[in-house]
């Protein structure tokens, strides 16, 4: 067994090219649990936490660009104004200790259907940037995650960044777990009301092998909302919730039944849409988010 501790992406790729099948280690909050319980017996590890290039985030020309080592703690502390649903999702992850360690790259790399950051990233059409021996590849998150804990990462590649366009408008993240704190999600849902495109965008977690975008429901709600006033007919909200639920294909497991998950997804969809249209009705200041208010 070996552990490489590179400090640059180039050195990390060198270490990976010497051992293309190596496991990548970031915050350790998933990986070490598997090791501790004997479910994973790593032979080679490339530990990434010293790679400063993978830390930090920036927003350039309306594009958010997050290094893979950005932690949930950073998302909570630094992005709450600009991306309130992202911060809300980060706040629901584990304990403070876990949020201090766990990373966005790790959430994508683990690709658990219950990954709390994934619904919003799916709703925002996030792109995953991988660096590897053959150079850089960028692909949509929804193509990168191909199934439960299955990703399109090639041997010799690492997840370097995640990128998504800035989206103006209300956004909400809701999650149902077995309790409020330190719970893995039974279902989760992120909803973004994109006021520029006048489009409702939804990402659903824990309700299918990978994050779901309910295209039909999104199109229906986008057309049903009066984007100037935030008005929407109650029947349309209910129809939207049913369509969101119909787009899922959850399983029954030790945390909950498929039937309960379908029910809960509809509740979350209805609630998130109601909150978003209420934000719209409260006026452009709310819809733009605090960051735009400061710029005015």
């Amino acid at each position: 067994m070996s552990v490489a501790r590179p400090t640059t992406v180039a050195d990390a790729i060198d270490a990976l090219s010497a051992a293309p099948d190596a496991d990548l280690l970031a915050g350790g909050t998933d990986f070490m649990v598997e090791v501790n319980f004997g479910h994973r017996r790593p032979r080679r590890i490339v530990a990434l936490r010293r790679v400063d290039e993978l830390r930090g985030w920036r927003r350039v020309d309306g594009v958010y660009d997050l290094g893979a080592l950005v932690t949930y703690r950073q998302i909570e502390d630094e992005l709450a104004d600009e991306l309130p649903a992202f911060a809300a999702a980060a706040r629901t992850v584990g304990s403070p200790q876990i949020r201090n360690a766990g990373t966005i790259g790790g959430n994508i790399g683990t690709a658990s259907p219950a990954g709390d950051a994934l619904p919003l990233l799916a709703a925002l059409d996030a792109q995953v940037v991988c660096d590897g021996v053959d150079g850089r590849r960028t692909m949509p998150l929804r193509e990168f995650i191909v199934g439960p804990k299955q990703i399109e990462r090639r041997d010799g590649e690492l997840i370097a960044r995640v990128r998504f366009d800035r989206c103006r408008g209300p956004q909400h993240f809701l999650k149902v777990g077995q309790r409020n704190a330190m719970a893995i999600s039974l279902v989760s849902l992120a909803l973004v009301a994109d006021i520029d495109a006048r489009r409702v965008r939804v990402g659903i977690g824990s309700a299918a092998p990978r994050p779901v975008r309910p295209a039909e429901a999104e199109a229906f709600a986008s057309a049903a909302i009066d984007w100037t006033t935030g008005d929407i007919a109650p029947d349309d909200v209910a129809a939207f919730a049913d369509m969101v639920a119909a787009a899922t294909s959850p399983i029954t497991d030790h945390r909950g039944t498929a039937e309960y998950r379908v029910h809960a997804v509809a509740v979350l969809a209805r609630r998130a849409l109601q909150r978003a249209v209420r934000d719209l009705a409260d006026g452009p200041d709310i819809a733009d988010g605090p960051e735009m208010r400061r710029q005015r």
Partner: protein
Amino acid sequence: MTQPSTVNDESVTYGLRVNGREHGVQAGWLGESLLYVLRERLGLPGAKNACEQGECGSCSVLLDDVLVCACCVLGADAVGSDIRTVEGIGQPDSLTDVQCAFLAEGAVQCGFCTPGLIVAVHDLLDRSPDADELAVREAISGNLCRCTGYGRIFAAVAAVQRERADA
């Protein structure tokens, strides 16, 4: 102390800096968690081993001044970092104000969660001395205590805040 960038099994020896002191680790294998290394290789049993999955907080330590669960850190990946455990926070003959308050307020019952809580509370009060009750609750939400019901723990934290404010 310079460290090789790659540690191989042929030399399962690496150095860790714990509580300001350099330790040589003779690990059985490189997959050992920092928690296991602290307890079983370095004889520092303050960080407790309970869930081994980052749920209970009883193994809370500071890694480069960041509160983490030692069970979720690979020992060999802690090389070059400053690790602080409860053993580096107070001594039996010179307890910290937080430890004294835990004793005075009855915040210790079976004591298993106490080392992790002491580390977490020191971290909180160093970062935000004026943390309100909600912030205190949030800060120790990852440290499970099955004895006290937390009331005495909140009282101890409040006592430290009062003392420090008066000092």
